[in-house]
C-alpha cells in the first residue's frame, strides 16, 4: 500500500477540535452522571503525528510501571483506527469503588477494572464523535498492552506502512478522585481522506 500524503489545514484542525470537544463533553456528561463526579475538560489536541513519535510515546508508557496502557480498535463507515488509553497512577481502591467492585488485590481483578474503565471512556467518546459525523463505530474488546503483546496493536502492525496519521489527544481527569487518563484517538492512515471529506462537508 502506497503511503498517502496526509495534510491538515488550519480550518480542518479547528473543526476536528470542536467536534472532539463536543464529543468529550458528551462523554464526560455520561461519566459524570454514572460516577457522580465532575470531570475536568481540557481542550483536545488534534495533530498529524509521526509514527516514530507515536512509538516512542508508547514505549515510554510501557516502561513506566505506574502507567496502564490499554488499546481498543474501532471501525465504521470506512473509517477505522485505534484508541490508546494511558491510565496514570491508577488508584484501584477508587476505581473499584466507582465501578462498584469489591476491593481486591488480585491482579486479574485490577486488569478487569482498567479494561472496564477503558471501555466506558472509549465508548462514550467514540459515540459522541461518530454522532456528529453520522458514523456508527463498532469497538473491539480492549486489551492491556505490555511489552509482550504490543506487536498486536494496529499501530505496530502497520508501522512499516504508515508514516504519519491523524490523532486526537484527550485527557480525562476526575476532580477529587485520583483518576487521570490520557486518551489518544489514532485514525488509520487510509481513513484520513474519508474523514476529511466528512469534515469538509461540515465546513462548507
Amino acid at each position: 500500500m502506497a503511503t498517502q500524503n496526509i495534510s491538515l489545514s488550519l480550518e480542518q484542525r479547528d473543526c476536528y477540535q470542536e467536534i472532539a470537544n463536543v464529543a468529550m463533553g458528551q462523554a464526560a456528561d455520561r461519566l459524570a452522571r454514572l460516577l457522580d463526579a465532575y470531570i475536568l475538560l481540557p481542550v483536545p489536541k488534534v495533530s498529524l503525528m509521526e509514527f516514530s513519535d507515536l512509538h516512542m510515546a508508547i514505549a515510554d508508557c510501557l516502561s513506566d510501571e505506574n502507567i496502564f496502557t490499554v488499546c481498543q480498535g474501532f471501525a465504521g463507515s470506512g473509517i477505522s483506527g485505534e484508541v490508546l488509553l494511558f491510565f496514570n497512577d491508577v488508584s484501584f481502591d477508587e476505581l473499584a469503588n466507582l465501578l462498584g467492585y469489591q476491593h481486591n488485590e488480585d491482579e486479574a481483578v485490577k486488569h478487569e477494572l482498567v479494561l472496564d474503565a477503558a471501555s466506558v471512556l472509549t465508548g462514550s467518546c467514540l459515540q459522541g464523535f461518530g454522532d456528529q459525523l453520522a458514523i456508527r463505530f463498532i469497538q473491539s474488546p480492549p486489551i492491556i498492552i505490555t511489552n509482550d503483546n504490543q506487536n498486536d496493536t494496529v499501530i505496530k502492525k502497520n508501522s512499516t506502512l504508515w508514516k504519519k496519521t491523524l490523532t486526537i489527544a484527550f485527557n480525562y481527569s476526575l476532580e477529587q478522585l485520583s483518576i487521570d487518563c490520557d486518551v489518544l484517538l489514532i485514525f488509520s492512515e487510509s481513513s484520513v481522506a474519508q474523514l476529511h471529506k466528512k469534515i469538509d462537508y461540515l465546513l462548507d
Partner: protein
Amino acid sequence: MTIKVLICDDSSFARKQLERALPEELKAKLFFASDGHEGISLIKEHNIDVVFLDLTMPNLDGYGVLELLKKDNIQPTIIITSADIQPGAHDRVNKLGVAGFIKKPFDDDSVKTMLLEIGILKGG
C-alpha cells in the same frame, strides 16, 4: 433597536455555527473573540449587551471571564454555549450569574428559544 452581541469561542467553526444559528429577527451588531482575554476587552470597549460564552478555551476560559466580569461589576447578558454539559458545569456557572445555557452542538432552534426565553427577542 440594534444590540451588540459578542460570540466568544476559541473555535472558528463554532463561532460560524453560532452565527448561522442566530435568528434573522435579531438585529445585532456582531463581535467575535477567540479567547477570554479578547472577550473581556471587547466587552469593556464596546459595551456589549449579550455574550455567547464558551467555557472551554485556552488562556482565559469561560469561568475566568465570568469571575473577572463579576469582580469589575460589568453585567452583560451572558449565555453559556458549551460542550461541557455535565450537571456540575451548570451548577458552577449558575452560581456565577448567567442568563442561560445552550449545549453544543446547537439544535436548529435552541438559540432562538433561549433568546425568546430571556427576553432578548420579543415573541409575537
